């Protein structure tokens, strides 16, 4: 493992770092973190087990094992990344390995919202732009500067206009991606809803 883990906190407007490419469609959360590693009551040690089975199969040649990638922070993936189980352990494992942003062709819904909830922005790009990025990062290290203000990514040679859900972009810029405090602010409205919902009037309560 790398230097000590510090979670993202507060406003996220700029992410600069080296890219790591992982090629493949439909990479599911069982592959990102196999189920046996879910037997834990905290997320602390998940980083070292990210892609455990894929890495064992590739015997040191998996992108997450290559020496040149060890300081990478921006993950480049293809389509439907993070499909399958809702386990937040998957983005937690990626984040604890060192990933701070993900750029891909597309993401599964639950994985995407889990990433937002822990402060790891996910951006989308068309297939050919992703392939450009992946080819560049294979040939030599690709460093990107991601600017959340205008959803752009640039390197010395490349420029990309990234797509991100506007609600997510605003939350990262304001630092409210950890939704709890915004939700708590509407306590009165929540209580009104609790008293108004028809079915809560005719249901037995434990």
């Amino acid at each position, binding site marked *: 493992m790398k230097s000590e883990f510090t979670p993202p906190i507060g406003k996220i407007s700029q992410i600069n770092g080296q890219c790591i490419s992982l090629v*493949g*469609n*439909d990479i*599911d959360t*069982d*592959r990102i973190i*196999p*189920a*046996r590693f*879910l*037997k*834990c*009551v*905290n*997320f602390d040690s998940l980083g070292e087990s990210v892609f455990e*089975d*894929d890495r064992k199969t590739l015997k040191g040649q998996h992108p997450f094992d290559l020496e040149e990638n060890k300081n990478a922070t921006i993950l480049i993936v293809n*389509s*439907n990344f993070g*499909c*399958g*189980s*809702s*386990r*937040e*352990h998957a983005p937690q494992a990626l984040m604890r390995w060192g990933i701070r942003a993900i750029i891909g062709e*597309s993401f*599964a*819904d*639950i994985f995407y*919202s*889990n990433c937002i*909830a822990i402060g790891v922005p996910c951006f989308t790009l068309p297939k050919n732009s992703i392939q450009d990025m992946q080819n560049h990062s294979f040939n030599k290290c690709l460093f990107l500067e991601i600017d959340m203000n205008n959803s752009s990514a640039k390197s010395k040679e490349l420029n990309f206009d990234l797509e991100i859900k*506007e*609600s*997510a972009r*605003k*939350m990262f810029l*304001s630092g409210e991606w*950890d*939704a*709890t405090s*915004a*939700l*708590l602010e*509407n306590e009165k*409205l*929540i209580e009104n*809803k*609790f008293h108004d*919902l*028809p*079915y*809560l*009037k*005719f*249901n*037995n*309560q*434990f």
Partner: protein
Amino acid sequence: MSKDTLFDKVWDLHKVSSLPGGSDQIFIGLHLIHEVTSPQAFGALKDKNLTVKFPSRTVATVDHIVPTDNQSRPFKDNLAEQMIETLEKNCLQHKIKFFNIGSGSQGIVHVVAPELGLTQPGMTIACGDSHTSTHGAFGSIAFGIGTSQVRDVLATQTIAMNKLKVRQIWCENQLSNGVYAKDLVLHIINKLGVKAGVGFAYEFAGPAINGLSMEERMTICNMSIEGGARCGYINPDEKTFSYMKNKLCSPKNEHWEKALTWWKSLKSDEDSIYDDVIKIDASKIEPTVTWGITPGQSIGINQQIPFLDELSPNDKLVAEEAYEYMSFKPGQSIKDIPVEVCFIGSCTNGRISDLRVAAKVLKDKKVSKNVKAFVVPGSEKVANEAKQEGLDQIFKDSGFQWREPGCSMCLAMNSDKLIGNQISASSSNRNFKGRQGSPRGRTLLMSPAMVAAAAINGKVSDVREFIN
């Protein structure tokens, strides 16, 4: 944008506010928790000095890590024991109702909540598990969430979420004999693809859906997520209401009448607007089996594994990966592929009607000597009902092992796992690489009846040859 669908109505009813970022704050009517995705959420509550807002709206059970052979405590697996203890402690501390092992109501969370009558039409239901979509079978809007959102539901009974689009999947005609809900949903995922549902709720409708029992409808909605849709639902009808009558937590007496009146008002309007509509002819579907590493890679029992040039450009990459991982060749028949393990269970197909169908195939037959076969009832209630009907004995006489309820080898968090590159015939929901506990294990998804047929012959078989 969709308008006047059941999804729109339930969403609007539960909307608490529009959040500054543009997403909606949605009230969660029923929150289900289990041992795997909740401990970190309770930990986060403690760190933030928060309490559980409405403990009566959260219900717990234990399912993923429970052993299915010997459930005496402490569990042999220390980590599993630590997880159940943590859940017990959290439920006790926060006054959350917990259906523990031996309560008579423990089981897979998506089997337990409907059979207790907790799942009801018009509710929003969330759980830290992607198969929460199951509950949509009752006309609720139900979806999986991550642990941070479990924390938010515990603390506020709400989550922040962007409204989904709605796609209606209209299923015409009826399924033919020997073809089940599992075949229908595998077929739908194959036709639409595993990511078509991203950003959508799926409304399953049409004569074929109306013809399904409530348990079959749960199988359909359960696998919405395998098609990429976080949420899938079916408009409630008389079958829904009759299933719910007299369940432990269903409304009683005068409350029942009020509930019924309200539930009957809940459905998509005839002139409602969908973001997309797809039509499927259910009568053309054969018993369906997956051959690859995503639930979209399936074929009819009499078909051959597709060649690359038969697939769309987007499907080729993962097909090549699948040929290699599964050691199958394009053009090879799925029928007669030998299987080594047969598993009946899971939140997709571990209900009493699933066990009845499989037992009917197995009656007076023997499991092939080359096969390890076991059945894991979805809940203690399912197990008890099966025993009363003598199904356990039929399974045991055929050579199936009869186990205790839990998630078991669907995701192999307990000791039920494939070994090496074994091939399983499985009634579960995911055939991902390594899903069933061995990094090289291979999973063929199919209906419980098809698993029973495969167990008897020791190879992938057409169940219609057993029942016609």
